[in-house]
């Protein structure tokens, strides 16, 4: 029983660390269509010199967006991403990360 509870707690901790309880992928898609799609293409597939950003764990996307929002450089086109991430709220970042995790271009 103790082992079982431990496993459940561990799973819960991992889940809480990667997913916000309130992350809304539908709202994330709507926010993505507002501005991100212009460079990264439909469903985050990556176009031209802009990289693919779909299919990544939510934690990855969240950390990247939070870093850009804080003005931290991560790669050669950081200035663009810093500018785009500045106005994002915590909720919008969660939503975007949730949407991009499973977004696929058909």
């Amino acid at each position: 029983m103790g082992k079982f509870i431990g496993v459940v707690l561990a799973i819960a901790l991992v889940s809480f660390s990667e997913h916000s309880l309130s992350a809304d992928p539908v709202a994330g898609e709507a926010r993505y269509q507002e501005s991100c799609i212009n460079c990264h293409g439909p469903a985050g597939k990556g176009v031209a010199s802009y990289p693919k950003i779909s299919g990544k764990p939510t934690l990855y996307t969240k950390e990247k967006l939070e870093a850009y929002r804080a003005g931290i450089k991560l790669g050669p086109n950081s200035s663009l991403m810093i500018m785009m991430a500045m106005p994002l709220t915590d909720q919008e970042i969660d939503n975007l990360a949730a949407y991009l995790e499973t977004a696929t271009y058909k």
Partner: protein
Amino acid sequence: MNLWSKHVVPVVFGTLATLGWSISAQAGAHGGMNIPMIKATTLMEGLDNPWDMAFLPDGTMFYTEKCKGLSVRMPNGSVNPLYGMKGSTGYASSGDDLFCEGQAGMLSVAVDRDFAKNQHLYVYSSSTKYHGAGCKTNFERCDGNIVMRFKVGADLKAVSDRTDIVTDIQYKPFESNQPFGGPGAHNGSRLRVGPGGYLWVTGGDRHRGICPQDPKLLCGKVLRIDGDGMAHPDNNPPVGFDKRIYTYGHRNVQAIDFRPSDGKAFTAEHGPWHNDEITALVNGGNAGWDPAELTAGRGACPDKYCGYEPNQKEGMDPAIRAAYTPMSDTRFKDLMPATWNNNGYSQGTGSAAFLKGDNWGIYEGRLAVGIMGIGFGGTPAGQRIDMLSITPDGLGINNLTRMPLGFSKRFRGLAMGPDNALYVAVDEGEIYRVTAEPIK
């Protein structure tokens, strides 16, 4: 009477009546105006950043994919991969010196005017073959973009006899402190065969401040050359310039085409968060882009490039940017003023083609301009194709109509096909065939 019958039905009928009157009135007022039905169908999909297309009279279509290589689509729809880049597979042959990075890669393609006799095809790509002792920093010569001539096999299944006819177009080898600061920035390019069969090559400034106004470096220039890479004898650049140069002072030209009525060359190029420009070229003229630091009243700029100043970190009024580093600087006496400047916005003009054929009705002869859509700092993204009616002197437009496609994408490559349809490559991976037919 319920809500529906009381309010909605009269409104609907009223609207229909108004529409009916309006349509009748329009038909009467415009009697006989030939407005075509424009329709886009998907010709190819699942491609990897298709960049450009070139056609043979029977509809055979050569096309490039930026990080893969050159292929040909036969009229029956089958595809022959012809010449790959380093790391590509499935091609009949390949060049290990060809690479893609950032905005660079295998970009444009053009068919020789005498293809029926010589089977010649031209392709622009980034290459490591001619770096030589250069390319050690961003502030020195780096010959990293080339134009290749191939001989296409009679069965269109392979190419041979690669000859590099231009080997010294500049390339940006390293990251710099700019918004689009990665290596491989601003290469142009569009290859098109113009009047007389000469090859036109458009370039970019590769994020080097001195490039566009430099007399010898082939960055920020439009070249007019023959099939061997030699200068057109009538090119008239200023004294001391490389004779292959037709015009200079450009930023990043990804479009060139020739007006059917008089053969005049028009380019489209990206602006730096202000003023995408269409320009009517004048032999030896200056497009007016000069992003060098310590000039025109400017001080030092990040990595000696003032292209995104005075503020490259935040959005600001495009007009203020334009005043600081103009796309068309009026201090140049040989300035070619812009035909159109996208209302002061930069949204990324990707390619352009004059609409040919009377099937285009009132739009025949207009310049179709692909806008890729770059929405930063309050600029609307604006992914679209505009159809510009250009004045006879080439110095302005009469009007502009958005092509009614019903969708928005990153419109990278536009080329007219032999069937008078417009072929459109988008970064998302499709090539569309856009037709115009009379409305019956």
